[in-house]
């Protein structure tokens, strides 16, 4: 038996909504509500467009709705639907209005744009052209490079790992008390997307050095300028990429 179009519509939309909710309910990794809303608008629009692409199917889709209002035989069903719909609307409105006490959703740029220049360690840096001075040892002197990475690891575990984690996954043992959460380094969507000069800027200037869109008031990242030497910072950066198996982004070569 073929389902009526309206039923198909409701089932498709309902099933997709259910699927989008699944990660949140069963895996504890919710898809943000803001995104589910956008997805659902797209899905509803697409299904509606497909179903109205021919006259026959348009007619079939809307017939039951039209019949509800126009067909005197369906007066009973209509009355029920007409009674229930405002109640549902009221319920939704209540839900939305009583959310007043929820703090507003925040949009924070995780990778805000760096300044073109910065001054640190008493001298200016041009972030656009800045390179990790230790990086070249990777090709030239593998042994020296390994020793830099090892030193970087030691610096990391003495200074950074409380927040950024043993596994470099941004889940150190103090991370739960911080908002925003410390950044992870593993994965393909964090430092793998950034050049070493960018990471250098973030380490040296820390949370207080973030631009407005990065939320400088909340970040617990210290400005490491006064705590680590320049060379130490570069070594830590070598370690971050080495441990996670990522490569720093090299803009110039991507032309």
């Amino acid at each position, binding site marked *: 038996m073929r389902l009526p179009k309206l039923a198909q519509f409701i089932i498709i939309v309902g099933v997709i909504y259910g699927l989008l909710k699944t990660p949140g309910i069963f895996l504890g990794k919710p898809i943000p509500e803001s995104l589910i809303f956008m997805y659902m608008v797209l899905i509803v629009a697409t299904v509606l467009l497909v179903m109205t692409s021919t006259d026959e199917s348009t007619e079939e889709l809307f017939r039951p709705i039209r019949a509800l209002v126009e067909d005197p035989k369906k007066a009973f069903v209509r009355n029920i639907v*007409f009674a229930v719909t405002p109640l549902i*609307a*009221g319920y939704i*409105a209540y839900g939305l*209005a009583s959310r007043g006490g929820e703090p507003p959703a925040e949009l924070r740029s995780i990778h805000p744009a760096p300044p073109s220049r910065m001054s640190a360690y008493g001298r200016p840096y041009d972030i656009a052209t800045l390179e990790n001075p230790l990086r070249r040892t990777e090709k030239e002197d593998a042994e020296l490079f390994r020793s830099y990475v090892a030193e970087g690891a030691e610096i990391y575990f003495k200074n950074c790992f409380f927040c950024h984690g043993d596994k470099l996954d941004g*889940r150190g043992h103090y991370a*739960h008390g911080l*908002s925003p959460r410390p950044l992870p380094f593993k994965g393909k969507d964090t430092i793998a997307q950034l050049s070493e000069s960018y990471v250098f800027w973030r380490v040296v200037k820390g949370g207080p050095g973030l631009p407005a869109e990065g939320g400088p008031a*909340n970040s*617990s990242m210290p400005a490491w300028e006064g705590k680590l030497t320049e060379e130490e910072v570069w070594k830590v950066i070598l370690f971050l990429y080495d441990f996670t198996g990522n490569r720093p982004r090299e803009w110039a070569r991507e032309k």
Partner: protein
Amino acid sequence: MRTVFIFISILLFSATAFASGDVEQGKPVYEKYCRQCHGKDGAGDGPAAQYLNPPPRDFTLGIYKWKTTPFDELSPSDEDFIKMIKGWPAHNTVPGWDGLNGTSMPGWADVLGDNDTKDVIAYLKGLSGLEAPEKPPIDLKVKVAPSKESIARGKKIFGDVCSECHGDEGRGDGRKKLKDDLGARTWPRDLTKPWTFRAGSAPVDIYARLTVGIPGTQMPSFADPQSKKTLSDDERWDVANYVASLDAPYKKPGEGAVIKAVKVDGPLPDSPGAEWDKAAFESFYLVPQIIEGERLFTPTLASVSVKTLFNDDEIAFLIEWDDPTDSVPGDASAVDLSDGEVFKDGAAVEFPSSMGEKPYFGMGSASKPVDIWFWQNDGTVRAIKAKGASIVQDVSNGVSARGMYEKGTRQVVFKGPLKREWREEDAQRFVPVAFALWDGSNGEKGGRHTMTGWNSLVLGGGEGGSPYAWAAGAVVVVFILELLWLRGARRKDK
């Protein structure tokens, strides 16, 4: 008999299966992931070790805390090893944490596969020459269900046996100074915060701790017939059920919590009491200050709970936290319990000096200062304007504070003037507010303290119109639309 047989054969099977773990292959895994804390030779002396509390395990001793083999068996079972390394996901209720709760040992399940784990276990055993355990794990089948009677019996035993260390109400406020076998300071667990239990908080996990003890610490095995405090199996279950019942869920920080301040008519209370029942506690995780200046790596305080009341002119905060000691400098009993010199306990509430752009949560900056209300348990109360970590200035603005300490719980009431701009009629404002606490017996003073980041405080609420009004409005609008539609359809019909 049959079950025991099966049990043993499973154990034997797993033991043989694990025997295949390769020490040589375990070494590189250890070197990459473990040595930073546990040290090159496994002596618990990696570069990070000095900053960790509890300190990382010294594998050369072969003493493991979280095992299920009996107290007189040194070796943990392989299942114990796997849990210690890979984590107990079912027990992790702190967001993002997948390892041993309250320690820096994460769960490695996402990094180490089964073979890697086996190899690393073999390597660890090799460090201390541990053999496979001779004795099977203790029986963890539930013997006594957590009934009212069981809990009551457990409470009695707890008072006799456990309260010396864990405190009368189990808040970790015992009368005994504790050290582990290596001499490191340890603090007894606050049993009202099960999410801080290292290896699980279900009655069965607590039962395991009672039965096995926590090797290397002063937590003994209560199954040891040599001990003066031996408890029978049923008694241990009773205590486990009682301890599990101590859970005070409100102390567990929620997700995205907002402090909802409640409006009262008339004056605000100066001290804790029944007036505060109108408001509900919101709790927040505390983290030690490791950003600037002197840093703290051995926090004793895990969370803080806050209630807020306000009237037209003033606002009052009730801040509650569990502190194992009332730290009064010079007091003999405080000195006995303290880790080093006794400093004063303290608490601080911080908010922006003016609304608009948020100031830096770590005491503001010269252009965006913060206001701080500060209290210490000798009665000191200060109102401060801070323009950066060490740039502070006392201001007088009618802030008062009063604190009390009872059975491991401290409550402090702050009262001060309400800022007009916090209550704008047209919009609900979220006032940033942060907290900091000092446990003086833990050497906390100045920059060494625990703290929260900015949280949100919202006053009043409901100014945007009652949810019921919105609901009613929606009902009416939709109904009218329906009628219009119906009328249109009728007309078309005709």
